[in-house]
């Protein structure tokens, strides 16, 4: 039943490496097991499997893939409802649903073979998606109007692609490059996942489709060119995703050893109850771990599962909450996007990402809005709320029109205060 060919042995190799990594406690092993299982259908879809897959196997892969996709999507939707019922946040699950549906739509459009049409539809969808989610996420403000305008410009680009496919293709390629560099995406932070998956990759795909489809009707894109181009795109997307997983997961860069404690087991490290992967500095001090149970650090009570990080001197300096949690009176975002809630050495909160709009010291501060933060290289606002060491509000973005010290600010504007609470500058 199992065909022993080069693909089979390659998959065995991947599984073998995965087993070794699993034994050493690395989560990356899961990625390798999945890659081994999907190697044959993936290679075929990128035109690289050649004689190793016959047509009936292809049909079975295709049909089982469709069924599996439906099952996975329904399972994620089910998990969304369960988590909502439990009062837990579901941001990451929404992202998974979005990635699944977008990937299916995008690949289906490309496979239909009408590249120019596919390019126009993909880029128009990107623009509409951007405009829609900015409205849903933040309502109407100067910042969101700017974002909506960009979304509509992108839709316009898409329509222009019908008449000037090559020019628009080049413009989109330039837009993707600009987005990568201005948003500093080459750092592959976890928070960049949505930007890569919903914007950069679709924009690049649209650019490629418009370029390929710019030939006149009688010229057909050869199968070899198709395989190379879309195979490269697929490998590129997979590489980006892998880098986001590897680098993003290791944003806590341990310069010392790593120890893995199985889930459900606890180990006390320098007074902290840790579980899962524990990372140390070279001097042996604890750098990062997840709390096995509720614990109090620098006077701050943190729930089990919180990722806690220490400086090399042993001071607790930031944490990653697993769910929205009240920290020193501020409901703080947790779970997806890797929110780092920061603390001063003596325990006062330094940085939070608010889970809801909140009036802080009389100032109506806005909750974190993801799509506004995507444009931080343009407007300099990342959606965080900052405090001085004495507890005075230092910076926040307004949730409504407001006047401070006689100066009028609009919703979305950033306000800054010094340690005495005096306004520093208008933005």
């Amino acid at each position, binding site marked *: 039943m199992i065909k022993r060919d080069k693909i089979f042995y390659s998959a065995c190799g991947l599984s073998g490496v995965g087993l070794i990594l699993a034994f050493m406690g690395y989560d990356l092993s899961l990625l390798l097991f999945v890659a081994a299982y999907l190697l044959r259908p993936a290679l075929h879809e990128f035109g690289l499997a050649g004689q190793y897959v016959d*047509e*009936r196997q292809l049909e079975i892969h295709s049909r089982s893939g469709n069924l599996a996709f439906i099952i996975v999507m329904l399972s994620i939707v089910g998990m969304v409802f369960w988590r909502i019922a439990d009062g837990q946040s579901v941001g990451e699950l929404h992202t998974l649903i979005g990635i699944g549906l977008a990937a299916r739509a995008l690949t289906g459009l490309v496979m239909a073979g009408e590249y120019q049409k596919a390019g126009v539809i993909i880029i128009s969808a990107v623009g509409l998606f951007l405009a829609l989610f900015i409205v849903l996420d933040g309502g109407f403000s100067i910042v969101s109007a700017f974002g909506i305008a960009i979304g509509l410009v992108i839709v316009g680009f898409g329509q222009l692609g019908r008449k000037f496919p090559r020019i628009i293709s080049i413009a989109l390629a330039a837009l993707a490059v600009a987005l990568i560099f201005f948003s500093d995406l080459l750092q592959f932070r976890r928070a960049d996942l949505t930007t890569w998956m919903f914007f950069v990759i679709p924009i690049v795909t649209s650019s490629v489709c418009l370029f390929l489809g710019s030939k006149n009707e009688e010229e057909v894109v050869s199968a070899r060119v198709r395989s190379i181009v879309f195979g490269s795109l697929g490998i590129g997307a997979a590489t980006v995703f892998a880098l986001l997983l590897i680098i993003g997961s290791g944003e806590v860069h341990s310069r010392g050893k790593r120890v893995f404690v199985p889930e459900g087991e606890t180990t006390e490290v320098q007074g902290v109850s840790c579980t899962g992967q524990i990372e140390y500095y070279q001097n042996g001090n604890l750098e990062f771990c997840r709390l096995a149970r509720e614990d109090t650090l620098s006077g701050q009570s943190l729930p089990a599962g919180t990722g806690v990080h220490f400086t090399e001197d042993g001071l607790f300096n930031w944490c990653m909450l697993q769910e929205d949690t009240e920290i020193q009176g501020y409901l703080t975002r947790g779970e997806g996007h890797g929110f780092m809630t920061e603390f001063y050495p003596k325990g006062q909160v330094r940085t939070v990402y608010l889970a809801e709009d909140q009036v802080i010291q009389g100032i109506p501060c806005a909750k974190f809005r993801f799509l506004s933060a995507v444009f931080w290289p343009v407007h300099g606002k990342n959606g965080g709320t900052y405090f001085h060491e004495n507890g005075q509000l230092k910076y926040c973005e307004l949730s409504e029109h407001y006047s401070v010290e006689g100066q009028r600010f609009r919703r979305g504007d950033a306000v800054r205060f010094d340690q005495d609470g005096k306004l520093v500058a208008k933005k």
Partner: protein
Amino acid sequence: MALREYYDKDSLLEMKTHLRRFRFHQGELSQLQIAEMVSVSRQTIVAIERGDYSPSVKLALLLARKLETTVEELFELEESDHD
């Protein structure tokens, strides 16, 4: 499950294959041998002979060539009434 198409509201088309007969006529070729000749798996040949899988035009032409016959001799469509 054999390939069935509704030709019109009153009839059903089924594909029948004579692949096994032609295999034996060509020196009693095994399923594995004919599979290797046309670069597919043995399971694919099994599925074709059972009527569970309809080969692509390319594969059907390849099979006909290797078995020194025509596609029409190897495969046929039979109408049957659907109640």
